Every structure is written in C-alpha cells, then in structure tokens.
C-alpha cells in the first residue's frame, strides 16, 4: 500500500520584538481571538487556553506546511501514521477539529487529517484552542479546535517568494491583493515539490515519496454598505505522489509503482449584516469536496486501487446580540449534508449520506470588574446516530493586575464516521481478516451465517448496535502571572474523561479461521496533565520562550484489569509475574514529557536569528510482553531532541533573505520516525513587488 506521505521540512519560528514583543505568548497581549467564543474577543478576556501563532511567527521563519509550525507549539504532538496528525492534550488526531476560516476540512484517513495538505503561505494567524469546543463547533472538537485564519484582501499589494532546500525541496508562492472602493480581491498560489527521501538503507521505496502540491485560494469581497458585506472564498489544493516499491517474494523482487492523487476544493460564501449597534448576523454557506485515489501498478496491472470521495455541505446562521454593556448573546443554527463514496465500502458507486441539524447559543457575561462568565450549549441532531448535547461553562477572574485565573468545563463529542459504519474491507494476505463497519457487519455476517460460512460468533457480535458518539468531559484550570513587564508565566492543568470510545473488536470467525472485526463503543479513557509556558524578554534584542507539557493517560478497562490482578508481565527469566500499577504506562504513542525552547535575537537593522528546540520523552510503540497493554517492559521509541535554526535579513529594496537548518543534530529513528528526515538546509528569498499603500 502506498503510504500517505509527508515531507518534514522546516522550520520556522521567529520572535516579535519591540513594543509588541509579548504578543508571542498567549495570555495578556490584546490580540483578537475568534475561535474561542465565535465572536471577536480580546485574548486578555478569553477564559480557555489559547495559543495564537501569528503570520509573523510563521512567515519570518518560513514554515512551509502546517505541520512544521504546529510541532513547535506547546503540548502539540505530531503523529505520523496516515499522514501528520496532531495530538492535543493526549487525545488522538481524530479528536481535534481543523478549520480554515471557521469551516471544517474533510478527507481524514483512519481519523487523521494530514497537516501536510495545508500550506501556510497566506495565513494571517493560527488559533489553537485547547479543551472541548463542541458547545460551539459540534463533532470532532473534543480535544480542541485549530482554526487557520487566512489573509483577507487588504489594500493593493503583490509579493512572491522562493525557497529551495535539501532533497530538491522547492516552494514558490505569490500573494496578491487588490482593493478599490467597495470591492476587494486577493489571490494566493503556492507550488511545492520534493524528491522525498528514504532513511532506510537498501530500499527502493522512499519513506517520503516524491510529490508535488499546488494550492490556490481566491477571495472576493463586496461591501453593499457599511453594514452589509459579502465575501466568497475559493480554495483548491491538489497533491500528486509517486513511489517505487520493491516487493520480495521467494527471492524475486517485483518492482511496483505507487501513485496517489488527492484533491481538495472549498467554496465559502459569507454574507454579514450589522442591523444596528447591538445585532449582527452572519450567513455562511460552505461546500467542500475531498477526493483521493491510490493505486499500485506492476507492469500495467493494477494490484491495488483505493478511492475515496467525500463531500460536505453546510448552511449556517449566527447572530450576535449585545443585550447590555456587559452581556453578549450568540445564537446559531445550521444544517450539514455529507456524502461519501469509497472502494472501502461495499460498492464504490453507492453514495452514503448523513445529515446533521444543529443549534447553539452562548452567553458572555461580564459580572463585575474582576469576573467574567461564559456559558454555551449546542444540540446536534444526527440522522444516523444518537443526538449530542454539548454544554460548556468558563470563568475568568482577575485577581489583581498581575494575576488571572481561568477555569472551564465542557462536553465534547465526535460522531462516528462513515468508515465506522460502512467499511467493508478484507485483507487476503496475512492469514486473512475482514473489517466491517457496524451497520455493514450485522448484514454481512448474517448473510455469511446463512450460507454456512461462519464458524463462530463472538460475544461482541451480540453487542453490535447503533454506534453512539464518542464523548468527553474536559476540565481546564489555568493561572497567568505577569510579575514584571519582561516576564510572563502560564500554567494550565487539564483533565479529559473520555467515554464511549469506538474501537474495533473481534466479532466472528469464518470457517477456515479468518477473523471478522467490527466497531463498538467499548473504551473509556482519561488524559490529564499540566502545561507550562514561560516568556522572558532579556533585553531589546533577546527573547527566550519555553513550554512544557506533562501528560498521563490511561485506558480505564486496562486499569480495572490491573486492579483486579488479571494483568501479568514477565520477569528477566521469562516467567510470568503479576504486573504492578506503577508499571503501567498508559496509551501508546504519547510522551509523558514534551518541551520546547525558543531563543530569538532581533537586531534593529532588520537582522534576526533564532534557535528552536523540541523535546519529547520516550513513547510506547510495541507490546512486547503480549499482555495487551503498555507497561515498562514494552517497546519504546527513544526520547528525542530536534533543533532547528534560522537567520535572515530584510534589505532596503523590498527583498528579504533567509537561511536555515532543520534537525541540526541529524537525529533520525528509522523504525519509529521513518517520515522524519535528517539534517536539511534551505535558502529563502521573498520580494515585495508592489508595496501596500492604501491599507
């Protein structure tokens, strides 16, 4: 099978200095956040943990793909199965909602939305809101929401940039903006290509295959009056990946060619109307289609072909009402229609669909000079699954001018996805096994049973019912402390209690022994920990920023088994012994400690340099002792340190140049991080052709 591939390139991070230097750390600087409350709100008034990554941070450093910049943020762990996913507060990538300008992206593979699909060349800022966001955003916002806010048309400008680096990685982009009277327009184009690489010796196959990606986004705006505005955005991204594989069978190597093509189209018209000082309404339409084709060919024969087509349509209205000086109310409602076709289901021509109707409300109440309360509630009525009710309550207290406390609790959910309902997959190799979605499983197994092809039905077969949404309750309690102008300190404690997790279970055996799996709501888990962030402005030139996350996770069924004395491991002699609670490591692919440190230097004459280090402690990858969970006797990936550096200068003639080295120490881990390349160098040039004059 073709791997879903990604390029780990670079970089990027830089530091803003001078007057607004404290902007880089979430907390007090008065940047505007929209994702946390769906209304524009000063960061200093937001009661939940938020990270804002500004375009300056991204641009100056020259990150190329979304993954590059997210991996440098505190508490974000980039996973590498089925593309680069983001793990937030210990929850898998499935549970973080990814938005562009407030609209969701579709096209997840095994729950992962590949962050390499997104380029960062026209991003104004990225808002990362941690903790359940389902009270505003519905499904998927269990761990948090990442909202990518693109540059809006502003003034008249034109610029272009080129970047070239190791593995013939080449990136070209241009941004244009035009504004005249009531009309505005902007365009963004980006081309990215790489040779890919292999850090596995002696293989033809590249762990990251040669690929090219093209992205364009066009936005148009028209103001009918000062009160009414219409905007429409078109985005189109394509990705082509090719790879050669050598498959050895009985000593004969067969060369095959893999090909993958992904397309992403988004259309988003938005009408905004301000009725008066108090009432503003927004009508949003959204259509997105993702299609993906993967093929494996050997001398003309297609060995394997996989196709996925996923369309998501939405209409939504949101109305904000300023009831009084201290009370803002938000009301919203919408309808989603989703369609999926795939070779992974019984018939590729069979279009599967789902509809969701939802409503939400939020009250944002400034009780007095030191206390603000935000309460929200959302109801999602789902045609295929049970409905979900998602409340949230958040408080922010200003204890004094230097000390703030935030506390929030909310419910998050994720509706079962199409794969968990309709998957119809049989692997004929490796002994043979099948996986069916929960709706498909009962149908198929009953039919096989009628034909006498079922050997035995397992207990879990009888538990197959309609899937329920997966749910979580998330708690966040944080303190922000600003002892002096040059110091900033954030602490946040979090806990997520997750129930009804969907997992695959063995439900039947076919005659001949091959196994049949399906999906059930069977698991409960907990993640908890602490995040720390620190910012220190040494002087006019130097700034240090550090972040740390401590994380504990557990599968509750596993904990119960351990407590009941039914979990064992082996001693050095290979004999079984009872496993102790203290040996339990929790969920796999999670590091207990993650840290980052960024040191930035900025010279008044437009020079800058920075060093960014990212650390993650060991994470469990392999259940070596066979007891079905991860404990200290099992296989771990080594803890790792990644160091990136970069430096640049802005010249007088509208030219900017930058050089950088990623993965300075050339750290690689062939087995556990096959997608992470070794040391890479790059050079970047940006040129402003038309300077913005009438902003």
């Amino acid at each position, binding site marked *: 099978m073709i791997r879903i591939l990604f390029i780990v390139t670079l970089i990027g991070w830089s530091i803003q200095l001078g007057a607004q230097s404290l902007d880089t750390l979430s907390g007090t600087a008065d940047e505007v956040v929209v994702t946390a409350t769906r209304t524009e709100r000063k960061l200093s008034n937001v009661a939940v943990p938020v990270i804002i990554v500004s375009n300056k941070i991204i641009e100056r450093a020259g990150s190329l793909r979304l993954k590059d910049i997210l991996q440098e943020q505190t508490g974000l762990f980039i996973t590498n199965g089925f593309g680069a996913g983001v793990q937030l507060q210990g929850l898998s990538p499935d549970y973080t909602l990814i938005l562009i300008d407030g609209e969701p992206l579709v096209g997840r593979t095994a729950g992962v939305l590949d962050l390499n699909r997104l380029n960062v060349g026209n991003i104004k800022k990225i808002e990362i809101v941690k903790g359940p966001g389902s009270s505003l955003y519905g499904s998927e916002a269990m761990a948090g929401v990442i909202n990518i806010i693109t540059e809006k048309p502003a003034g008249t400008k034109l610029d272009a940039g080129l970047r070239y680096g190791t593995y013939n990685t080449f990136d070209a982009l241009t941004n244009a903006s035009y504004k005249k009277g009531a009309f505005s327009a902007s365009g963004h184009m980006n081309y990215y290509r790489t040779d890919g690489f292999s850090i596995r010796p002696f293989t033809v196959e590249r762990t990251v295959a040669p690929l090219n990606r093209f992205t364009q986004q066009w936005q148009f705006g028209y103001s009918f009056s000062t009160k009414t505005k219409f905007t429409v955005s078109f985005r189109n991204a394509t990705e082509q990946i090719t790879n050669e594989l050598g498959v*050895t*069978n*009985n*000593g004969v190597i067969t060369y095959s060619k893999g090909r993958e093509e992904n397309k992403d189209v988004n259309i988003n018209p938005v009408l905004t109307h301000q009725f008066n000082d108090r009432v503003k309404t927004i009508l949003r339409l959204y259509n997105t289609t993702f299609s993906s084709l993967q093929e494996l060919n050997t001398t003309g024969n297609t060995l394997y072909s996989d196709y996925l087509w996923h369309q998501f349509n939405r209409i939504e209205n949101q109305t904000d009402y300023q009831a009084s000086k201290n009370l803002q109310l938000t009301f919203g409602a919408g309808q989603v229609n989703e369609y999926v076709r795939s070779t992974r289901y019984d018939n590729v021509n069979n279009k599967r669909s789902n509809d969701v109707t939802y409503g939400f409300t939020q009250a944002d109440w400034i009780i007095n000079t030191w206390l603000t309360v935000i309460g929200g509630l959302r109801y999602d009525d789902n045609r295929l699954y049970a409905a979900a009710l998602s409340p949230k309550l958040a408080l922010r207290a200003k204890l004094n001018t230097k000390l703030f406390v935030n506390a929030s609790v909310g419910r998050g959910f994720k509706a079962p996805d199409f794969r968990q309902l309709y998957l119809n997959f049989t692997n004929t*190799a*490796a002994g043979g096994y099948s996986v069916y979605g929960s709706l498909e499983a009962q149908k198929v197994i009953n039919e096989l049973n009628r034909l006498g092809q079922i*050997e*035995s039905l397992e207990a879990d077969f009888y538990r197959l019912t309609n899937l329920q949404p997966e749910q979580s309750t998330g708690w966040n309690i944080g303190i922000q402390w600003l002892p002096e102008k040059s110091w900033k300190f954030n602490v946040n404690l979090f806990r997520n209690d997750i129930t009804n997790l969907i997992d695959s279970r*063995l439900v039947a*055996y076919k005659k001949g*022994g091959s*196994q049949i799996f399906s999906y059930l709501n069977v698991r409960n888990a907990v993640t908890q920990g602490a995040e720390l962030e620190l910012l220190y402005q040494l002087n006019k030139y130097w700034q240090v920023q550090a972040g740390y996350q401590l994380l504990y996770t557990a599968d509750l069924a596993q904990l119960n088994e351990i407590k009941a004395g*039914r*979990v*064992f*491991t*082996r001693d050095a002699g*290979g*004999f*079984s*012994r*009872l*496993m102790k609670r203290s040996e339990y490591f929790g969920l796999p692919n999670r590091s207990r400690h993650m840290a980052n440190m960024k040191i930035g230097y900025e010279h008044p004459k437009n020079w800058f340099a920075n060093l960014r280090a990212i650390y993650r402690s060991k994470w469990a990858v*392999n*259940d*070596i*002792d*066979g*007891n*079905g969970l991860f404990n200290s006797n099992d*296989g771990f990936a080594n803890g790792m340190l990644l160091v990136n550096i970069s430096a640049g200068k802005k010249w007088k003639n509208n030219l900017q140049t930058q050089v950088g080295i990623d993965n300075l120490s050339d750290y690689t881990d062939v*087995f556990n991080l096959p997608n992470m390349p070794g040391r890479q160098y790059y050079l970047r040039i940006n040129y402003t052709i038309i300077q913005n004059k009438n902003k």
Partner: protein
Amino acid sequence: MKHLVKGVVVIMLMGAFVACSKKDSNGDTQVLAAVTVNDLPADTIIGVSPNGQPYGSGRFTLYSLERNQVVSNVDSNTNKWDIGFRGTTVITNSGTGGPGMGGGFVFVGTFDNLKSVPTDSTIRVDAAPSAYAITNGSNRGWYVYNPTANLVTPIPGRVLVIRTGTGKFAKVEILNYYRGGVTLPASASDDEKTRKQRFYTFRFVYQSNGSKNF
C-alpha cells in the same frame, strides 16, 4: 523465506531441573520440580507457497510430560502422549485430539500461584477445528499475534492446565515461540521471523500421584 528447515528435526531437549523438592512433616506433600523444555520444534516452516504463505509438514509434535520426552507420531493413537504442538495450535490427548483421557484449559494467573486445579474449573476436551481444550486463536488462549510486528507472543499469566493421556494432571507455562527462547525484535526481517518461529520453550510441573495439587 527461501530458507527451508528440514522436516524432521533431531534436536533434543534439555530438561533443566530447577526446583528442589522437600517433604513436609507429614511426608505426603511434595513441592514438585518444574522442568523447562527448550526449543521444541512444532511443525516448523519448510516452504513458502506461491501466494507467500509459509507452511510446515502439518504434523503435531507430541510430547509426554510424564516422561519428559517427544513421542513419535506413530504413537499418536495411544495414550502415551499428553500435549501436542503444531504452529500455534496446542492439542491434548482427548476428543478429536487423541484416544487418551486427556483434556485441559487455560488458567489465568501465575505458574507458581497455581497450587491446585480450582475445584470449579471445567476440564475441556478437544473438538477440532473450533473448540480445542486449549483455546486456539490470537488473544483467546495462550498467545497473541501482533500483525504489525508479525510476531507471536505468549500472553503472560496464562497457565495451561493439562490432563494427561493417562488422566494425571500437569501445569504448563509457554515461555516463548521462537528458537533460542527469545522473541525476535519487531524490526527483524520477515525471513528470520519465519525461520525461527514454531519453537516452543515451556516449563511444566507433572503431578504423578493423580491429585490436582502441584
């Protein structure tokens, strides 16, 4: 994969005696010695089919726990053997397995803590192909197969209670499934995983007096 392991393996097994035995004041209870058997081949791989599936000769390796030795397949239709191994399938001398008085089940717990067969336990008999006394299949009986790593690992804390061909009791802990008694790393080649699999290392205690106490 091209590596063939010859069908008949002449290896033999070292019985390593570990425990000591002593008598209590009454003289009727004995702490029985545990015996370890290393690298017992169990239908090792002799070839690979055109579609890539490795295969063996298809024969069970039959073992007498009473005499601590391999029993020839010629004697398969007698009660001379107590336990048989073929790949991950473990049979007892009972039901479809053989004509003896055997049977067994998988006990959850440690080897040392199994001091006597619990009175409420059911001794199962073999009913191939779906219901062996020692339940077959990944994560159902004594082992788990990890398809990502392509490795078979005995589940810790699983003891096979075996009623022998002659109706005596024994307890068996399977320690490893690979030659040398060490599970290969996940990073080992599939070729090596194929060549070295189906070699059992196990320890057992045999109770000759007919009681269910060990």
